[in-house]
């Protein structure tokens, strides 16, 4: 047990990959076995990750379950893993959603099953690795690896315009991350110039002193890299296409986990590495975030395609998270991190439902549905809960995160917060309107008469998410108590730099307000 806990992160990271290699030796004709085995293995993975949650010391902000080995000695790269309250939940989210998306694809993925499950497991490895890595090089490695399986998942099992979307997805994110790599390398070299030793250890790089002008340039570079992933307003067009064309499992992972990397990157890398530049550029970032909230909501309102609607709603939700993160108060950052989890859960569930509807009718156009609530009471009820969670109805998870974000940002950025809050109204408009057109009214299309309700597998797929929605909504303490120390430490670290920032502000007379 002791050894298990000591190396639990490595086990978590490589277990799916090893499982994938193991599945490689199974005959591809045997699709049933492949599916069941892959799902089972991802469930095992999820159960392993629960140990993280149980043994996580909730009062500490330091990294836990740390593993450190020499990797490339010449330029100081190490195999350095560790998690804090933020990455803990993101890893849990990853393992849960991986399991769920494998379980959800029993019907959706019909061809190349073997390749699909292996790619999904590989993807899981890379995602967890990205969250657990504390070494920039290791982080970047996992970060880029992640794109490969996703590219194939969209490109092979996607719908109509899958190749276009897959290429767009990979080029967009690759362009962003290469700009980011440039920034990271500059910091690496600066650190070498200052201390005379090569290191990719993020905790050591935090102490790098970067001159302000360079800091702003680097911040913009790294910002673009992460902003593409989030996605922040003008960098979002890949998202709608990728989400829409990806298979259900792909959409769930994209929305549930991949979008989180942007925020996680800001939290772990961009902001602590360049705090002064962050503080100076915050107003601009917040403007983008708020535009994203309203823009995403408005565009989502007039979509005709269900998946596209959910995709644009993601843009809106991620805007809230950006707002909370960059408002930089303990409450709002707490809310942002919680909202990351919430968004993964609710949007993931929304995509699952859209996938279920698609499996039944082979269309995603809202106008093709209507009146099916009568035929599918269970689906309608669970879908409703998910929609409400996404709207941010109190008592469900979305509310807690959104409210913390808004209340935390309110004092310093009142105007932004007020505008952002109006996004809550739009959320109700587009989601309820969608729900009404899909579920309510009379059946107008005779094909909908034959609608089948959810079977046991589908209910099992959804239930964990619904449970979490209610749980986080009613009793978020287990989550917040683990997130809070990390976040408080983070905010204190930034506030520490406020002094220098204020000096700069006085000197250049920026933002005198």
């Amino acid at each position, binding site marked *: 047990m002791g050894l298990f806990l000591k190396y639990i992160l490595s086990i978590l990271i490589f277990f799916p990959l090893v499982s994938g290699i193991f599945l490689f030796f199974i005959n591809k004709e045997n699709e049933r076995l492949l599916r069941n085995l892959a799902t089972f293995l991802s469930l095992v993975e999820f159960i392993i990750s629960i140990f993280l949650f149980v043994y996580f010391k909730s009062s500490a902000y330091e990294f836990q379950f740390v593993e450190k080995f020499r990797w490339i000695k010449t330029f100081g790269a190490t195999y350095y893993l560790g998690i804090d309250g933020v990455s803990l939940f993101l890893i849990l989210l990853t393992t849960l959603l991986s399991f769920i998306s494998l379980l959800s694809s029993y019907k959706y993925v019909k061809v190349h099953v073997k390749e699909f499950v292996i790619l999904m497991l590989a993807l899981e490895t890379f995602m967890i690795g990205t969250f657990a890595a504390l070494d920039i090089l290791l982080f970047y490695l996992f970060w880029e690896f992640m794109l490969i399986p996703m590219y194939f998942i969209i490109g092979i099992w996607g719908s109509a315009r899958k190749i276009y979307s897959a290429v*767009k997805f990979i*080029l*967009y994110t690759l362009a962003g991350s290469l700009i980011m790599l440039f920034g990271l390398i500059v910091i690496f070299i600066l650190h070498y110039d200052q201390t005379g030793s090569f290191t990719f250890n993020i905790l050591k790089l935090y102490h790098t002193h970067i001159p302000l002008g360079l800091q702003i340039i680097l911040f913009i570079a790294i910002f673009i890299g992460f902003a593409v992933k989030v996605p922040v307003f*003008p960098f*979002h*067009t*890949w998202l*709608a296409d990728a989400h829409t064309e990806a298979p259900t499992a792909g959409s769930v992972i994209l929305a549930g986990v991949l979008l989180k990397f942007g925020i996680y990157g800001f939290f772990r890398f961009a902001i602590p590495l360049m705090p002064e530049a962050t503080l100076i550029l915050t107003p601009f970032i917040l403007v983008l975030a708020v535009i994203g909230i309203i*823009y995403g909501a*408005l*565009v989502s*309102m*007039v*979509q005709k395609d269900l998946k596209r609607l959910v995709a644009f709603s993601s843009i809106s939700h991620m805007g809230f998270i950006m707002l909370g993160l960059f408002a930089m*108060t*303990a*409450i709002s950052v*707490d*809310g942002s991190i*919680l909202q990351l989890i919430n968004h993964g859960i609710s949007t993931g569930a929304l995509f699952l439902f859209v996938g279920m509807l698609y499996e039944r009718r082979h269309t995603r156009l809202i106008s093709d549905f209507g*009146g099916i*609530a*009568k035929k599918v009471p269970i689906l309608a009820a669970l879908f409703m809960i998910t929609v*409400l969670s996404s709207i941010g*109805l*109190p*008592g469900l998870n979305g*509310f*807690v995160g959104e*409210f*913390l974000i*808004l*209340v*935390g940002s*309110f*004092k310093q950025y009142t105007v932004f*917060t007020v505008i952002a*809050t*109006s996004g*809550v*109204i739009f959320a*109700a*408009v587009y989601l*309820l*309107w969608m729900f*009404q057109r899909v*579920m*309510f*009214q*009379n059946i107008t299309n005779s094909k909908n008469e034959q609608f089948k309700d959810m079977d046991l597998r589908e209910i099992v797929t959804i239930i964990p998410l619904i449970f979490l929605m209610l749980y986080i909504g*009613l*009793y*978020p*303490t287990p989550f*917040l*108590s683990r*997130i*809070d120390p990390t*976040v*408080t430490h983070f905010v204190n670290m930034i506030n520490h730099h406020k002094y220098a920032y204020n000096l700069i502000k006085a000197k250049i007379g920026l933002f005198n307000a």
Partner: protein
Amino acid sequence: MDTKDLLVWSIPFFPMLGAILLGVFGKYLKNYAGYIGSISIVISFLFSVALFITVASTHGFTAILYPWIYASTFKTNISTYIDRLSVIMLVMVTGVSALVHIYSIGYMKGDKGFARYFSYMNLFVFSMIMLVLANNFLLLYVFWEAVGFCSYILIGFWYEKKSASDAAKKAFIVNRVGDFGFGLGVMLIFVSTGTLNYTSVFGMMPSLPGYLVTIIALLLFAGAVGKSAQFPLHIWLPDAMEGPTPVSSLIHAATMVTAGVYLVARCHVIFSYSPFASHVVAYIGGFTAFLAAFIALTQYDIKRIIAYSTISQLGYMFMAVGIGSYAAGIFHLISHAVFKGLLFLTAGSVMHAMSGELDLRKMGKLYSKMKITAVTFIVGALALSGIPPFSGFFSKDAILADTFNKGYYILWIMGEVTAFMTAFYIFRIIFRVFFGESHVDPSVHVHESSKVMTIPMIILASLAAVVGFIGIPPFDHSLFYLFLHRDFQNSFVFSPFVNYYPWFLLSSISVLAGALGIYTAYLFYIKQAFDTEKIKRIFKPVYELSFNKVYIDEIYDQLIVTPLKNFSVYLWRVVDTFVIDGAVNGLAQGFASFSGRVRRVQNGMVMSYALTLMIGVIALLAYYFIK
């Protein structure tokens, strides 16, 4: 948890249990669903009465269930605050709910969603109880939205009808607009006081700058405007009548819509420290009361008329709490809950008898066929019109007397005119439905409703007749005032009395107004003394204005909904697809065409590759030589 706490928590517990049971196992419960739903509410009502007795003899207290959101300095609990105001609300809510639930057993009989209906209703009662019990603004906000959500699913209960699902959506979204303000208010309270607990927040009010208090109060009031359907957010309530009638009775007359009034009364400290905000409340209330009554004059749908009447009566309540007469407002809230609940139930009974018909023009002469319904309806109507000794007389006059004596003459005049119109439109219903000539479709078999429906109606009617006596004028010496006024003592007195006219003088004026209204209706619809068509023609603009609900829906549609939709389409088609995506794809195409040119260099001729290589070698050698 001591016994008192246990008592408190058992009140919301039973409806919640009922909601879960019915929601999950509803399919298997069949007709028992109605009994389970009703019994859970009745138990809850009994506990409420017990709590009422406990609190009446002691002071208020707080009961904490568990810590809810603890993030850094933001700390809120799931906890309740019990004082006299909350227990009065509690008894009213659970009492009316219990009666409506019992009524629903008869009304909803045979509906496919019988169990679903009771599950939703129990969920609503749970949320409403928690709303009343909450001890901090966040919990209040949570259940504020939760009752809105219950209202949403209940309005859209018959979701196959497009009108019903549209109305549900409209209700939710309009409420959201109000809640937007409310939410900002809650945030502002936290930011300026650092806490959300009622007692701590109220304690800090005197020390806050005036403008901040005003903003907080106005933001909170925005929530109240949405929930209580005041102008300009009243448009959802008439449409909400698409839901089953008991829902209209419980949610859209007796309980949920009065939450706004409860909010202002609960936050009376905040409002009293901002006379400006209070006056906004009062005048919006007064204007809404007048506007809604004006619209109600010409409508033909019974339920819609009663809905406008609800809006109008809620306006009275806001008028009362806006001028600082909190007890009077709450008194009207209670008596209104009783008689308006009654009116809806009886309207439902009529509708039931008429197989769902609601149009005034297709009724008449029903009195002989459904006596109980008719009598109870008339009792409710008399109470609404403010005719003594029915409850509406006492409560409405408590408000009107205060408006006059506190010097708000404009409000008083509006109130009196509204009282006249109120009496007119409600008796317009009575005369056209129960008396006069019959326009009933002969194929409809009109019949009296079953006992399970009539008994709650009778109970409510007798309550409507007697409940006013707890507030026998002069109001500030009445039982009700003396019981409640302890809770309002800590508010700042911003509107002292300027006149001391005796109550009977003022009352007689309003009774006169009411009686005049009834008499006018009598002249119109029984005597047929005037040619209605001619009057319609003479007052055509006024009539059209009233008949088309002052065009508010259309104005919103033209001013907000359509432009917003067009703007969104513009954003999607032009900004997103054309500008941003165009830029991205343009960049990609630019690279592609550039590479298309560059790739010509690679012509496949081995010799030219070799030549290039050689040139490279030469250049390298030259470089090293020069270096």
